[in-house]
């Protein structure tokens, strides 16, 4: 119970600090924070907005899991950004080339996306274990290569091949209906009312749920997850305990990239193609969500919802003019930075507390002073 309160203190505290700092920022430029936050909350109370929030939270959550898989073994996959965009592009192109029965068509597109994401992330993994190249640098470079090189190249190429080239046909050819995961408005409407404004709740929400559960099961129940966490906690102890370090690095990168491959499918299902201006930045935002949610499958749900709420709120702020909409990005940045600091501080307090409690418990049961000054805090 105490533990629970402790782990809640940091994110809640971070959120409060964020509200305070962003209020100051708003007031500095003559906006009223109360009316701004009021507009945001009022907007979010609407069912249609909530659909928007869920649609936004879905890719953020998947992206966060992709990053978290790496973080859990102290592997920094900064390349989720490039992996998902690249996977999105290839999956959209492959999906547009064929028409198959729905199940197979969807499976094909999903498989391609997962495979491309996994393979692209795998490069960084292989470079790390065979050549000692730090994954942070290599994934940053691979991001640039994918985004400013390969994607630009393939887009040009495919567009050049298209007949009747107009602005509406930009991007890859559209995917037939059979390749798209249907929306799940029906599911939502069982509990609520009809969803208006032509909003559709993405079917990828269910996929995100499955991925989240899979991540949880992997970490807590599977031997591979144990090995993964052990490598993150202490790679040397893990190696001595039979965990093959090189295979683990490659496997974790591949798995992380596979999850990253799913991110773009949310937009793919919505637009049925890879447009010239796909939503970018989900990879970096996912890292933020993972950090805010402490790589915990449930924690990341809340973090993804918070980030999605802030993203979606930008629209209403622009409409009501209560504040500059960019404030929501500032809030995301601040909450992240304050939270990681707060986690560090509470983590240390918790460890000290635990050492003290353990020593005390022993003194009570044995009535003697325990030896050893080695308190590794």
């Amino acid at each position, binding site marked *: 119970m105490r533990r629970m309160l402790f782990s809640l203190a940091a994110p809640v505290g971070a959120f409060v600090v964020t509200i305070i700092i962003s209020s100051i920022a708003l007031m500095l430029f003559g906006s009223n924070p109360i009316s701004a936050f009021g507009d945001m909350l009022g907007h979010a109370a609407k069912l249609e907005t909530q659909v928007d929030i869920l649609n936004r939270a879905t890719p953020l959550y998947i992206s966060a899991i992709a990053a978290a898989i790496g973080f859990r073994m102290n592997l920094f996959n900064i390349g989720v950004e490039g992996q998902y965009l690249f996977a999105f592009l290839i999956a959209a192109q492959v999906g547009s080339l064929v028409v198959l029965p729905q199940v197979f068509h969807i499976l094909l597109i999903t498989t391609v996306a997962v495979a491309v994401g996994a393979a692209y992330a795998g490069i960084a993994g292989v470079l790390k274990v065979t050549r000692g190249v730090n994954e942070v640098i290599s994934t940053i470079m691979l991001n640039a290569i994918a985004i400013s090189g390969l994607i630009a190249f393939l887009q040009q190429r495919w567009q050049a091949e298209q007949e009747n080239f107009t602005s509406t046909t930009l991007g890859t050819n559209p995917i037939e209906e059979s390749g798209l995961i249907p929306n799940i408005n029906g599911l939502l409407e069982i509990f609520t009312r009809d969803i208006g404004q032509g909003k559709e709740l993405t079917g990828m929400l269910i996929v995100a749920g499955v991925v989240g559960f899979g991540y949880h099961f992997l970490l*807590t*129940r*599977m*031997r*591979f*997850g*144990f*090995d993964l*966490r*052990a490598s993150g*906690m*202490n790679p*040397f*102890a*893990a*190696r*001595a*305990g*039979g*965990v*093959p370090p090189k295979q683990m690095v490659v496997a974790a990168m591949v798995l992380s990239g596979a999850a990253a491959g799913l991110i773009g499918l949310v937009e793919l299902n919505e637009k049925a193609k890879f447009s010239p201006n796909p939503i970018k930045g989900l990879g970096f935002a996912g890292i933020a969500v993972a950090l805010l949610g402490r790589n915990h499958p449930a924690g990341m749900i809340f973090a993804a919802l918070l980030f999605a709420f802030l993203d979606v709120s930008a629209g209403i702020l622009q409409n009501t003019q209560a504040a500059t909409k960019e404030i929501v990005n500032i809030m995301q940045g601040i909450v992240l930075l304050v939270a990681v600091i707060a986690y560090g501080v509470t983590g240390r307090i918790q*460890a*000290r*507390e*635990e*050492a*003290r*409690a*353990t*020593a*005390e*418990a*022993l003194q009570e*049961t*044995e009535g003697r*002073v*325990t*030896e*050893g*000054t*080695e*308190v*590794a*805090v």
Partner: protein
Amino acid sequence: MTAAIELTGITKRFPGVIANDNVNLTVKKGEIHAICGENGAGKSTLMKILYGMQSADEGTMKVYGDVVNFNTPNDAIDRGIGMVHQHFMLADQLTVLENIILGAEPTSGGVIKFKEAEAHLAQVAADYGLTIDPNDMVETLEVGERQRVEIIKVLYRGADILILDEPTAVLVPQEVEALFDNMRELKAAGSTIIFIDHKLDEVLEISDSITVLRHGKTVASMANDGVTAHDLAELMVGSELPTPDTAESTVTDTVALEVQGVTVKAEDGRDVVENINFSIHKGEILGIAGVEGNGQGELIDAIIGTTDVSAGSIDLHGVNITKMSVRKRRELGIGYVPEDRHHEGLMLDSPLWENAALGHQTQAPYGSRWLINRDGARNQTELIKEQFDVRTPNIDVSAHALSGGNQQKLIIGRELTSNPSLLIAAHPTRGIDVGAQAAVWEQIRTARAEGLATLLISADLDELIGLSDTIVVMLRGRLVARLAPEDVTPRDLGAYMTGAATQNTDEAA
């Protein structure tokens, strides 16, 4: 005459532990004063307080009669106190000169006057009869040289009170002699030396006065005059020091581990382990003696499988394991107690039951190829806790919350309860208290009686002699001697370890 150092009523608490409890210490000017006590008695904490690295919760410190209050090492340095740390405080990629002048750089306008620094260094070195090349990179130096750099570093800053924190821990007996010669010269030049050690013969040889700490308290302070090792030992542990003593031999004829012609190359292509041959039988403990860094670590790595061998073969019960993964070897029954439990043994931030599973997570009761059996793992951990007397309120606390001795008992427990056929034990009792030490010895001996083959590596030569059925000595990657523990003394071992004595290598192999 006022004392150089006078500490009164020093108390320092850490969460759950009182490291120093009302400690008193008086060191006269110009003497060598030994502070002894077993691991965890609070010696290092006391010295860190005296050197300003930590502050005491209670108590007063006087230097040459003046009450002082140190907040940083700088304050201590200003008072002429210098400390040589047990773990060398040197930057490998800096030169000797840079390491020495650090913090006391002669400068003009912020620019270091290297020429002047070098001249001053040469002067200091000459005054105390110590030699060193100031422009060597520290990474190229041997252990003894590094220690010399540390001592010069302190002298360079004009310290006349030197704290040496377990300086002999990393040295072989012959190097210890050289260090003691240096210490005598320093004393002759007027320095006061505080010398921390728990090897009693060394303490008796070099010190003028002795203070004994136990459980964070001063239990005695006396002149080195008619004191015996026996007296000191009793003061240190409150009872007689235990020594390991193997009962009758349990060695069988069945070979458990066969190592043939094993060679391991370092990254730079050097042979760090060269053509090693030995075998261990069921029920046998084979001890390897050697100065640290002579290839023992790499040999262990090769047997457990974390390093590749470049030549030779390793067979476990007739199965060639030379190319097997660590995991396969583990599954075949190799238990491993690593040299440094924090480095290779534990996940400090994970609960005890997960730590117990580490290394055995693919096997019952901890898990299987695919899944982890949480209940099985927890039950097994409870069992280890009972059988091996791991003192912990429950098995969900993080490993870092346990004392060093209990952490070690957990490791020994998890390895021995997994029914290994070969145990690799590197320094199994390093840094743990006496009670836990005796328990660990007892457990290894019991397993040996049940047919366990053990490869023991230890810097504690008494432990090595007391536990082993056979002792081999490793020097520069080779086995240079094979000895029977019954007729060998620590001093003999030291001679072989440094190459001062040699044995026919055919016999060794």
